[in-house]
C-alpha cells in the first residue's frame, strides 16, 4: 500500500473537517463497543481468558522458529507447499508464479490485511489477471478505485449506504437501490458469478495451527469458505507470527477474537483447512500454498515492541480509541490504523516515516484495557516516543524547549522566579473571564478549547505562605 503516514496531521485535519465522514463515524460510534461489552459477560472468566490468550501467543513468539518449522512440516505432510517471503514484493511474486504454474486466470480473494501491505491486487492486475475481493466491505472499496480500508475488520465503515448505492449504480449499471438488504442482494448476485468462475482462491489466516499444519479462517459472510472450497488452487498469504500451537488454544483465542471484534460469541463460519483435497472429493483445492511473510515482523520481534506481535487483529483498540473514533482510519496513512497500527507501522515502514503516529494518542489507556491478548499498547507507544527523542526525530522547537526546561528545572531559584512571572503573565492573559483563548507557540493546544488561567500564585508560593501562617 502507498505510504502516506508522513502526512498524518494534514490528513487528520481534512478528516476532522469532512462533514460526511464525521456523520458516518458518529453513526457507527459505539456499536462495536456496546456489543463487545455485552459479549464478554458471557465468559465467566474474561480476565483469566485474556491471560491465557496472552500466554498462548507469547509462547509462540518466544519459540517462533521452532513453531514455524513444526507448522511447515505438518502442512507439507498434508500436501501443501510452504513458501517464504522476506518482502511484500517477494510475496506477490510467489502468487504470480503460482498463477503462471497452474495457468490461473481469476483470483477470488477473501479478506487479507497482509495482502494490503503488499498491494497484491495491483500486482495481480498488472500481470494481466483478474482479481475480485469477496468480502462485501473490501469489494465496495475495490470497485471504488481501490480505496484503502479504514478499519481492519470493517473496511468500509466510513461509507454510508447512500454512497454505496451510488457506487453500485455507477459500477454495475443498475438502478440505484435504497435499502441495505437490496444492496447486499445486488453484491451477492455479482459475486456469486465470480465464485463459480474463479480458479485461484486467496485468503489470509486468522490462525495457523502448528500441530495440524492448518489455516483457521473466520468470517460471517462465508466468503472465505467459498474461496477455499470452489477454486482448484488455494493460496494462504499471512504473517509469520500467526501461529498457534494447538486447536484447543485456537479455541481459546477464538472466544476472545469474535467477542472483541464484533461482540459475537462466534462468527457464522469458522473454517479449518488442512492440505489438498483427498481421493474422491468433489470440492476443495487440488493445490494449497502457504506464503509466510516477514516484511518487518522479525524487526518487531527484535525490538522493544515485540509484544505487539501477539496481536490477533480484532480491532478492539481501534473501536475504543478516542483519536481513531474522531479521525477515522484513513488519516493514519497505511494498512493498520489505530493504536496497534501506531505501534507496528513505524517498525514496518521506518520510524522516521511515521513520526506522528505514536504521538497520535492521548495515552488514555483504553486500548491496553480492551486488548484480548494484553498487549500493553500505551506503554509501547511511549517506547516509540522515547526512541524518537533518542534518535533526534522530534521537531527542533520541541527539542530546544525541553532542553531549556531541563536546564531551568535544574536551577530551582531561577525556576521559581520564572514560574512566578509566568503565572502572573498567564493570569493577565486570562482577563476577567479567567480563560486563555490562544496560547503563544503551542497554539494547537488552544485551537479547539480555552485554557483556564492560573489564579496568580505558584504552588511553591502558596505552600510557603501556608507554612508561615501555620
Amino acid at each position, binding site marked *: 500500500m502507498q505510504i502516506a503516514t508522513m502526512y498524518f496531521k494534514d490528513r487528520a485535519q481534512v478528516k476532522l473537517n469532512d462533514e460526511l465522514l464525521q456523520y458516518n463515524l458518529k453513526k457507527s460510534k459505539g456499536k462495536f463497543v456496546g456489543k463487545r461489552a455485552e459479549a464478554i459477560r458471557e465468559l465467566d472468566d474474561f480476565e483469566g481468558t485474556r491471560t491465557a490468550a496472552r500466554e498462548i501467543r507469547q509462547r509462540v513468539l518466544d519459540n517462533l522458529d521452532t513453531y514455524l518449522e513444526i507448522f511447515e512440516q505438518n502442512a507439507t505432510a498434508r500436501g501443501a507447499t510452504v513458501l517464504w517471503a522476506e518482502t511484500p514484493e517477494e510475496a506477490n511474486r510467489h502468487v504470480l508464479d503460482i498463477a503462471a504454474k497452474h495457468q490461473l486466470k481469476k483470483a477470488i480473494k477473501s479478506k487479507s490485511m497482509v495482502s494490503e501491505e503488499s498491494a497484491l491486487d495491483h500486482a495481480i492486475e498488472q500481470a494481466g489477471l483478474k482479481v475480485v475481493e469477496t468480502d462485501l466491505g473490501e469489494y465496495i472499496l475495490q470497485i471504488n478505485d481501490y480505496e484503502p480500508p479504514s478499519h481492519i475488520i470493517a473496511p468500509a465503515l466510513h461509507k454510508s449506504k447512500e454512497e454505496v448505492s451510488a457506487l453500485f449504480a455507477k459500477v454495475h449499471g443498475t438502478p440505484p437501490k435504497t435499502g441495505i438488504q437490496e444492496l447486499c442482494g445486488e453484491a451477492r448476485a455479482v*459475486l456469486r458469478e465470480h465464485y463459480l468462475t474463479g480458479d485461484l482462491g486467496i485468503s489470509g489466516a486468522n490462525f495457523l495451527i502448528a500441530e495440524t499444519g492448518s489455516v483457521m479462517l473466520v468470517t460471517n459472510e462465508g466468503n472465505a469458505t467459498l474461496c477455499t472450497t470452489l477454486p482448484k488452487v488455494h493460496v494462504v498469504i499471512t504473517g509469520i507470527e500467526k501461529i498457534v*500451537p494447538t486447536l*484447543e488454544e485456537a*479455541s481459546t483465542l477464538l472466544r476472545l477474537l469474535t467477542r472483541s471484534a464484533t461482540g459475537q460469541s*462466534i462468527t*457464522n*463460519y469458522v473454517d479449518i*483447512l488442512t492440505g489438498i483435497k483427498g481421493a474422491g472429493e468433489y470440492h476443495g483445492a487440488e493445490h494449497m500454498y502457504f506464503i509466510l511473510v516477514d516484511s518487518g515482523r522479525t524487526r518487531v520481534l527484535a525490538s522493544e515492541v515485540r509484544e505487539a506481535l501477539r496481536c490477533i487483529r480484532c480491532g478492539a483498540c481501534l473501536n475504543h480509541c478516542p483519536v481513531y473514533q474522531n479521525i477515522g482510519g484513513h488519516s493514519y496513512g497505511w494498512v493498520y490504523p489505530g493504536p496497534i497500527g501506531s505501534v507496528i507501522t513505524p517498525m514496518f515502514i521506518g520510524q522516521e516515516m511515521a513520526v506522528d503516529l505514536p504521538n497520535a494518542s492521548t495515552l488514555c489507556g483504553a486500548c491496553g484495557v480492551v486488548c484480548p491478548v494484553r498487549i500493553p499498547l500505551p506503554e509501547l507507544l511511549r517506547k516509540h516516543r522515547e526512541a524518537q527523542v533518542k534518535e533526534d526525530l522530534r521537531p527542533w522547537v520541541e527539542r530546544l524547549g525541553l532542553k531549556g526546561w531541563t536546564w531551568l528545572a535544574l536551577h530551582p531559584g531561577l525556576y521559581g522566579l520564572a514560574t512566578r512571572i509566568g503565572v502572573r503573565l498567564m493570569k493577565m492573559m486570562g482577563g476577567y473571564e479567567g480563560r486563555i483563548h490562544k496560547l503563544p507557540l503551542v497554539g494547537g493546544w488552544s485551537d479547539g478549547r480555552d485554557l483556564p488561567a492560573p489564579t496568580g500564585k505558584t504552588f511553591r508560593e502558596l505552600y510557603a505562605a501556608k507554612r508561615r501562617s501555620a
Partner: protein
Amino acid sequence: MSAPARPPERGAKQSPERAQPANRARDNILGRVRQALGKTGPDPTAREAALAHIATHPIGPRPALPADLRQRFLENAAKLESSVDQLARREEIPRAVARYLTGIGVPPRASGWPEFADLPWGEAGVEVAIRPTQGQDPVGLTSVFCAIAETGTVVVLAGPEAPTGTLLLPDTHIAVVDGSRIVASMEDAFVLIRKERGSLPRAVNMVSGPSRTGDIEQTIVLGAHGPFRVHLLIVG
C-alpha cells in the same frame, strides 16, 4: 520441496541454483527470528518442549455450561437465527423437510449427501438429487459431525461422501444433527475428531446460522454469499 517461486522448465531437472531463492528467504527469516530470540541455530530442546506442549492439548478457561447441553444448544442456535425441528427417528426426516420447505415457500428440490439416499423422499414429495451441487439446487441437505452447545454451532467435515458445496451454495441449508452428538465446546469437538478420525479432514466447516454481513453501516443482513436460511433437524 518444489519451488514454484522459480518453477523449472517443463521436463527439465530442477537445478540447485533455481531452487535457491525460496530457501534463501526461509533461511534468512528463520535466521532473523533466531537472532531476535538470542539463539544461534535450531534448538532441539525447544523443539522437544514444543512437541510435548502440543501433545498435552492444553485447554484454557471455558464458560461453565449447564448439564442439559441440548437445551443450551437450542437456545444458542436460535440466537444465531438457525431454525430447529426435533425428530424422534431418522425415517421422519423426509416429512420434516417437506413440512419446513412448504412453510417457507421453497420448492422441494434438494441436493443431498449420499447417506440420505435410502430415505423415502418420494412419499414426502421431496426431490433429492444425490450429487454435489454447483448452486442450481434451492436446498442443500447435509449431516453434521457433531454440534456445539456453547455457541449453537454445527461442525461439518468434508470428504468424498460429504462435498462442502452442499452447505454453502443453495439458498437453504438443512443439516441433520444426531441428538446424541451435542458436545459442550469447540475443544470437545476437536477431541472427538481426533478420537474418531485420527486427523483433520481437508475442511472442517463450523456453521453458526445463516451467512450474514454488517459491512454496510454495521447493519446485519442475512444471506451475504451463503445460505439465507439454516434449518437444523435434530434426530433422537
